[in-house]
């Protein structure tokens, strides 16, 4: 593309300062394209290479997306995209994509399918769904999802009369944390992002949160900013993570003993009088109960339990208190670790309260203040649930997002009623849920498995009907409410037309409604029409969003810190921060967290822990060209001394076998000083057993394969997954 001097001047005049080497690439996507001339189009949209929903701008030349960059207006991206965001084009133009609807033509798992038209495939699904609903009741239809496609099939299920809808993001990830903070503060610790004011923090405490490797764009920008200006990092992790390498205190804790450290810290904070007395007095209830409950957790005891030096335990928390309240103990994100995780999250929430971080600069900002009027595009009310849903299992505090494995259990046992159909949209359940054997067993019990996805993953290739969704660069989704320090609205819209015979999930859901005779719940016209009406209802200028900035903020919504006339509102019963939880007590749980020791591995067994790579999102991106190129397979991190003892060399292929005798694919050993002796670590999401993923298939090992054991958190139903022990088989 030629960039004439004249055009450059035009562009420079448009950009904020008009200076050379300006970082602001555009004021308006439309104006920028006009200035460049030729066949160039810039489309502001929202990334979906992960679920942080960064604002992205797609550069389209002659109908092809050639470049993706970060939207400078969008608070989740701030003009930048991570490796995955940059590589989104690789997902769009991946030859391995699902290209047309398919109907099973053989036994489940054989991988034999016949090509079908959309009409035929949707007819097939609708007929089966109707037959199942008639025979077993609508409640026998279930849906599990991650990301935006879930919205459209939630609509289908509710219209049918089922509420058996669950998202692995709850019980396999952050639901546990959210519940703990709701019990304590009456709010989740964040929606679009954790409300951590990292860029202003003086001390940041990370419990297993591996920022840098866990690549959430804006949060990492702020973390690096904090490190750059000298904030102190206290990193609690059995592994020397990237974040640990930036830390002033690295506490290589014995896995599973985090709550011991937290309760001891709380004890020190209280007994040494380091807490924020005024704040605690004004905003909390239950201080005296906490004070009494934590007395037994002494530094001497903690040093033994956590295998950390006592001096480090004491000095790190004193350093934290020294800078309070401009500090934060990060609430974390993936929380399903050991099966008693709500109480760990409660301890983090209580410690933050004692330090007075909620609503303080460098702590946690207060939720943005904005009201959006309700909008359902004049769709009728849903019929009531045919039977109470099973998505809460036996867990009194399970959230509305549902407990996936409760649906799986019911699918296997048929109790209390049968579940006979799953719609699985945008999630690879075989990789998301612990114990793949049970997932497979449940799937084999189904009369109908419908997969809506982009790629032929393990789960998709077990489906009866495969419905190919188009990528985020080819579709509209509903307008997104973005809640950062300010409230705002962002758009996702197509940069190019859907390739092959793929369709947006909204269309698939809407057409399915029509086939089911539920036209009243189908889209009124097209999704863009709906989005325009939604924008109007919310008082947002749609053209500004779609043609120019891709994101608009709600003026006056940003009220981050406590002031005299900006007081925090706690959504708890007491309307205060509940250090002591009567709600938990009422259900027979500890109202103040107690330390419960967990089982530890015997000699020659290692606890399997797992985490993330900055260039991959779960198992979703391993096949994406540029990301696969950077990290084709994962490695098992093994402590150097242990490796020497076992005779394992760095780079050698080994196999892991867990306590149930289940083995993983061969995987490279990373022999390192960076991990404790009693655990091994691998990045989650590799080891695909999906021949249709031509790059990713069979590369690396699948941690989820080895996670045959899980312990359910009795409060929320979260599945503790770091409870599996493996031994090392040298002959790969």
């Amino acid at each position, binding site marked *: 593309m030629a960039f004439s001097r004249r055009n450059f001047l035009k562009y420079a005049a448009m950009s904020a300062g008009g200076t050379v080497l300006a970082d602001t690439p555009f004021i308006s996507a439309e104006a920028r394209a006009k200035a460049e001339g030729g066949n160039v189009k810039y489309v502001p949209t929202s990334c979906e290479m992960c679920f942080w929903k960064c604002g992205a701008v797609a550069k389209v030349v002659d109908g092809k997306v050639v470049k993706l960059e970060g939207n400078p207006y969008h608070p989740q991206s701030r003009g930048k995209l991570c490796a995955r965001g940059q590589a989104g084009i690789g997902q769009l133009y991946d030859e391995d994509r699902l290209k047309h609807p398919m109907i099973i033509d053989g036994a489940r798992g054989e991988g034999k399918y016949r090509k079908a038209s959309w009409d035929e495939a949707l007819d097939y699904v609708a007929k089966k769904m109707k037959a199942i609903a008639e025979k077993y009741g609508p409640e026998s239809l279930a849906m599990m999802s991650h990301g935006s496609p879930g919205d459209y099939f939630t609509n289908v299920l509710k219209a049918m009369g089922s509420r058996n809808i669950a998202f692995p993001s709850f019980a396999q990830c952050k639901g546990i944390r959210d519940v703990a903070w709701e019990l304590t503060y009456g709010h989740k610790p964040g929606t679009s992002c954790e409300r951590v004011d990292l860029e202003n923090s003086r001390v940041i405490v990370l419990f297993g949160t591996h920022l840098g490797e866990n690549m959430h764009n804006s949060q990492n920008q702020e973390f690096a900013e904090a490190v750059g200006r000298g904030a102190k990092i206290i990193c609690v992790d059995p592994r020397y993570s*990237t974040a640990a390498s930036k830390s002033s205190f690295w506490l290589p804790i014995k896995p599973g003993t985090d709550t011991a450290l937290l309760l001891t810290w709380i004890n020190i904070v209280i007994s040494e009088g380091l807490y924020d007395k005024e704040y605690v007095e004004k905003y909390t209830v239950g201080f005296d109960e906490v004070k009494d409950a934590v007395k037994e957790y002494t530094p001497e005891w903690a040093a033994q339990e956590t295998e950390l030096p006592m001096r480090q335990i004491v000095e790190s928390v004193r350093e934290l208190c020294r800078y309070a309240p401009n500090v934060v103990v990060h609430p974390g994100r993936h929380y399903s670790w050991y099966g008693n995780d709500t109480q760990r999250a409660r301890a983090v929430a209580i410690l933050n309260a004692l330090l007075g971080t909620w609503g303080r600069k460098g702590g946690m900002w207060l939720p943005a203040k904005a009201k959006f009027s309700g909008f359902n595009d004049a769709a009728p009310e849903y019929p009531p649930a045919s039977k109470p849903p099973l998505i809460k299992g036996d867990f009194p505090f399970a959230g509305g997002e549902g407990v996936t494995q409760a649906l799986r259990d019911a699918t296997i046992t048929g109790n209390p009623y049968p579940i006979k159909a799953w719609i699985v949209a945008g999630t690879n359940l075989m990789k998301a849920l612990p114990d793949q054997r049970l997932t497979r067993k449940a799937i084999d019990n189904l009369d109908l498995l419908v997969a809506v996805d982009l790629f032929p993953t393990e789960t998709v290739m077990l489906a009866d009907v495969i419905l190919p969704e188009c990528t985020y660069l080819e579709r509209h989704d509903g307008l997104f409410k973005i809640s950062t320090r300010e409230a705002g609205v962002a758009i996702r819209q197509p940069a190019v037309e859907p390739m092959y015979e793929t369709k947006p999930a909204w269309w698939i859901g809407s057409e399915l409604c029509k086939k089911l005779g539920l036209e009243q719940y189908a889209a009124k016209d097209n999704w863009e029409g709906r989005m325009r009406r939604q924008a109007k209802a919310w008082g947002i200028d749609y053209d500004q969003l779609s043609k120019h900035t891709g994101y608009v903020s709600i003026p006056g919504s940003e009220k981050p810190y406590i002031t005299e006339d900006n007081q925090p509102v706690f959504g708890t019963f007491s309307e205060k921060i509940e250090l002591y939880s009567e709600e938990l007590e009422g259900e027979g749980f500890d109202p103040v967290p107690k330390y419960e020791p967990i089982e530890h591995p015997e000699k020659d067994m290692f606890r399997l822990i797992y985490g993330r790579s900055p260039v991959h999102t779960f198992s979703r991106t391993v096949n994406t060209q540029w990301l696969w*190129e950077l990290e084709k397979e994962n490695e098992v991190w093994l402590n150097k*001394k242990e490796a020497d003892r076992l005779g394992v060399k760095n780079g050698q292929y080994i196999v892991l076998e867990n306590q149930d005798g289940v083995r993983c694919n061969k995987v490279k050993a990373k022999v390192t000083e960076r991990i404790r002796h009693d655990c091994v670590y691998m990045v989650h999401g590799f080891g695909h057993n999906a021949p249709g993923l031509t790059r990713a298939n069979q590369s690396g090992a699948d941690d989820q394969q080895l996670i045959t054991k899980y312990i359910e958190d009795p409060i929320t139903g979260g599945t503790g997954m770091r409870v599996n022990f493996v031994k090392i088989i040298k002959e790969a």
Partner: protein
Amino acid sequence: MPRYAMVIDQSRCIGCMACVVSCKRENDVPPEHYRTRVLEMVQGNFPDLTTEMRSELCNHCDNAPCVNICPTGASHHEEDGTVQIDRDKCVGCKACITSCPYNARHINEEHGYADKCSFCQQRLAEGKKPACVATCIGGSRIFGDLDDPNSEVSKILRKTSHRVLGKSIGTGPNVYYINQYPKRA
């Protein structure tokens, strides 16, 4: 005329590889080749460890071995101080590749010419920063004009101790490294 340089604040690098992918996309770098990379080098014994995150790329040396050795004049200095490759003049002899002490070059096998970081010459012409800098999540890569005393690079180099890679070889690199390890308690 500007004199371009890059400063890399290693303490801010979180090893996320956004720069690497951004570079590949911007410059259409062929599979398995890179114009820039990020090395993570860990030293010490558990639990006393330190890490150096090091972004590496062409150093656009003042006294560039690749320019000196190039038999055809394809590798050359531009007026802005950057080292560039005239692809029409390059015969793919690989002399530059062996001469580069920074391992910054590769052969584009499809077209036969040597290739490397150009500081995104095409973006500079549009008034934009190099792609890796524009997307650097940690704000670790800083770019600008050394001849402008008010540029970000000039300012940071004035007030921060810095180093270049392989100073003793006398190549006169224009990529500067600053690093402040946090003190570990």
